[in-house]
């Protein structure tokens, strides 16, 4: 079990030791790997205070002077609170600012809806020039950092809060670069998911006899790669599963890919409902309330396979 944030930041730390133009900014958000970075590379670390707006504007200024910048903060705040900074500072000038969006979905379940990042995918995807990627395990996170440093661009890396096991098959850099990895092959049904929900989907499939079901870990929800379009075109029907509210997230991205490529095929999506959760009980309890618990996933997949 590894933390995605530590895997990502450790990779950035290794890169930053060799490249003095790599800067890591934090809006008072920590991690053991971050402690190592700020201790050993203080000239490349900037504590920005709990000021996400200034952090992103400032990141743009650093990037304009040739720096490659990583902004790090808690997902709900570094995505939506400074959304216009992402657009007007980094996006409009298309600068190599990579924002690490840590704790997406219901990762902060116990904190309540102010701390959920359940609309961030829609918002960040909508910004012109943005690249939006999601890690489903720590090795994906590490390779996303390697890729971000080798191909600096305006991007958002969405990480999960909880430590998690590395999933099988193991991610490869080429998967990251084409924007997805195939977890299982099949034709009857193609499941498109990512992040925390990928692990839940794989658990459901492991405990069932469902056959001929493909699963894609859609790492890069924007832009969608041609290879991913080929993947969905080969499936008879598609279902997307995401820990986001219904508008503009992963399901929308898949629908856009279908529409843009003239494909008409049965499509379903599982999302969180159009409401905020204030109930206690943790992430799995909230997923149950949102009809995204393992039982709901199994029922839906079975229904689609029977349909």
């Amino acid at each position: 079990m590894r933390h995605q944030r530590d895997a990502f930041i450790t990779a950035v730390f290794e890169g930053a030791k060799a490249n003095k133009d790599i800067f890591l900014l934090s809006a008072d958000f920590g991690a053991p790997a971050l402690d190592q970075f700020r201790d050993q590379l203080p000239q490349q670390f900037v504590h920005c205070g709990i000021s996400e707006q200034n952090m992103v504007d400032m990141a743009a200024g650093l990037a304009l002077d040739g720096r490659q910048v990583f902004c790090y903060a808690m997902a709900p705040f570094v995505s939506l609170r400074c959304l216009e900074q992402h657009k007007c500072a980094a996006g409009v000038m298309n600068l190599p600012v990579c924002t690490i969006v840590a704790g997406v979905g219901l990762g902060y379940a116990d904190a309540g809806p102010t701390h959920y990042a359940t609309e961030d995918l829609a918002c960040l995807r909508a910004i012109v020039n943005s690249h939006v990627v999601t890690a489903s395990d720590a090795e994906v996170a590490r390779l996303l950092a390697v890729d971000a440093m080798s191909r600096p661009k305006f991007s958002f890396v969405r990480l999960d809060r909880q430590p998690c096991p590395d999933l099988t098959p193991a991610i490869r850099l080429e998967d990251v670069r084409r924007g997805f990895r195939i977890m299982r092959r099949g034709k009857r049904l193609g499941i498109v998911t990512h992040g925390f929900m990928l692990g839940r989907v794989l658990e459901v499939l492991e405990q069932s006899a469902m056959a001929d079901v493909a699963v894609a870990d859609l790492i890069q929800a924007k832009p969608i790669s041609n290879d991913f379009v080929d993947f969905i075109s080969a499936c008879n029907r598609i279902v997307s599963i995401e820990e986001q509210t219904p508008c503009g997230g992963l399901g929308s991205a898949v629908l856009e890919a279908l529409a843009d490529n003239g494909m008409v095929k049965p499509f379903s999506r599982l999302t969180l409902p159009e409401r905020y959760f204030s109930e206690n009980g943790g992430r799995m309890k909230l997923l149950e309330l949102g009809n995204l618990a393992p039982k709901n996933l199994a029922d839906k997949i079975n229904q689609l396979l029977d349909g």
Partner: protein
Amino acid sequence: MRNIAFFQEKARKVRREIFEKYVLLQQGHPGSTFSMADIAVALYYGNFVRRDPKSSSKFYDKVIVSKGHATSCIYPILADMGVVSAEDWQNWGRDPSVLRVFGNVRIPGVDATSGSLGHGLGIAAGYALSFKRRKSDQRVFVVISEGELYEGSIWESLLFINHYQLDNICIVLDRNDLIILGNTESCVRLEPVKDKIASFGLKTFECNGHDFGELLRAFEQMTDAPGPTCLIARTVKGKGVRMMENKPQWHYWNPMSEAEVELCRKELQ
């Protein structure tokens, strides 16, 4: 040192030239542009914005017009100094040109794309921090409007600039008192602005933003000061054209009769 008359003539030229462009374009923000024209003339022709010793068509220091609707104020200066090409300047409003009413980084000499208020100061802080960590003595001049003081991001940036002691930043607040719906003090009170900015730890200066003696003296003091600085330049929105002076509606361009255009031209001579 150039004499005051030199700066006054440059400022008249800037206002004349940008006015003709607005007439041609039938758009622009004359109130805000004329408000900061003398500030820009003092900064550039006073050589506070230093030229790049390696390239005569670039500057060593950075200038960010955070009040992006007034960025066109610096185009006649950049054209005069050979940073914006004569072709781009002549073509603007007639033929393809890189110039636009709002500035962007594709325009030579424009160091940040601006428009939405409250971003330029944070971007300036990023430049300034980068310069300091490179141990470069480059400076950043950033012109903000008082309208931007309503944006919380400005105060986030001031906190940051003071904490990191970004003494290579010179903030110029173009304080013409007007926002779109009227005087700031009757809309939502800003004063005492100087005290508020000083309370964030910046060394503050105040001057008449249309008096070149005061502007030049202030910029000398700011660039010599040991910490981050802010000049509150008291200005008049629409300065130089009586029908626009202190008139909130001239934030934007308005249709003018030929007689009104001629009257403005006469006043700008």
